[in-house]
């Protein structure tokens, strides 16, 4: 029986190369860049920085919407949007203070649809006459525009 081989097995070679190329293309387009993960990590660090600095310079404890909003607009880079929720608690009974009730909540936002946001939280105190008046929890969400 006659064995017929053509073109140095060119079809087999072409087939093998095509499979290799498909694999390379597949790897190339499915390579997940880690940049997105670092972007989230960095944003998370930034969100924490914002809450820590606003707490350290005693802006948060004012519990004043416009003061806090002005500070947020001032320190956050222009390419970031934010939403800040603050829940304020107070003692249920002034003397023992072993139970808290929600006194008030408010929210400040840059009014831009939220997308892939990161969250930072921080608890802080408000004093009056050297005594704790409120316990508050701030939750800041920031995301890239």
């Amino acid at each position, binding site marked *: 029986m006659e064995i017929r081989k*053509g073109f140095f097995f*060119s079809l087999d070679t072409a087939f093998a190369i095509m499979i290799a190329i498909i694999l390379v293309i597949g790897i190339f387009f499915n*390579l997940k860049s880690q940049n997105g993960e670092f972007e989230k990590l*960095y944003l998370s*660090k930034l969100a924490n*920085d914002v809450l820590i600095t606003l707490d*350290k*310079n005693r802006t948060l404890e004012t519990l004043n919407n416009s003061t806090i909003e002005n500070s947020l607009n001032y320190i956050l880079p222009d390419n970031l949007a934010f939403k800040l929720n603050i829940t304020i608690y107070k003692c249920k009974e002034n003397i023992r203070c072993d139970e808290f009730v929600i006194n008030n909540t408010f929210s400040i936002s840059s009014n831009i649809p939220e997308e892939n946001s990161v969250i930072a939280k921080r608890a802080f105190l408000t004093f009056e006459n050297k005594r704790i008046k409120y316990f508050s929890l701030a939750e800041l969400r920031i995301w890239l525009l």
Partner: protein
Amino acid sequence: MGKGQVISTEFLFAIFVLLILFVLGVSLWNLTATRLSEDLIKTELATSAIDVSDYLLKSQGAPTDWEENVTKLTSLDLGVVLKANKLDGDKVSALLNLNYDKIKESLGIKSHEFYFKITDLSGGVIQISGNNTEVGLKPNASSYSVNSRRIAILGNEFVYMNVITWK
């Protein structure tokens, strides 16, 4: 009459197609290798920038009064704050006067370069005692660089502390 393969049109066509496939394969392979290599560099730089900025902003350094005698500074323990995110002007001044290699050693930076500066929120470099708060090597235009820009307080002002790692 039989024809030899080496002169056949089909053979030439097959070689042509194979060559194209080969060139395409090699190009894609190189592109993928380059992208992988870039990703590795960017990952290393980003990790380092975030770690270093985090450390500088959270630690007072060891010993905590290292700025008074920099020879006491422990390796891998260099911080410039009074407390988290509140920069200590004396420590920042001491950092500016440290040798570049000493800073890199104290921050655990080995395989890339480093540049540090503190700016106001509009980008102007802050001065302490008449000196610009910047130290290290500025990145080249052609280098890969990552800037970890963190928000801090210096005195009573909000500032950006920039840690740029580059290669």
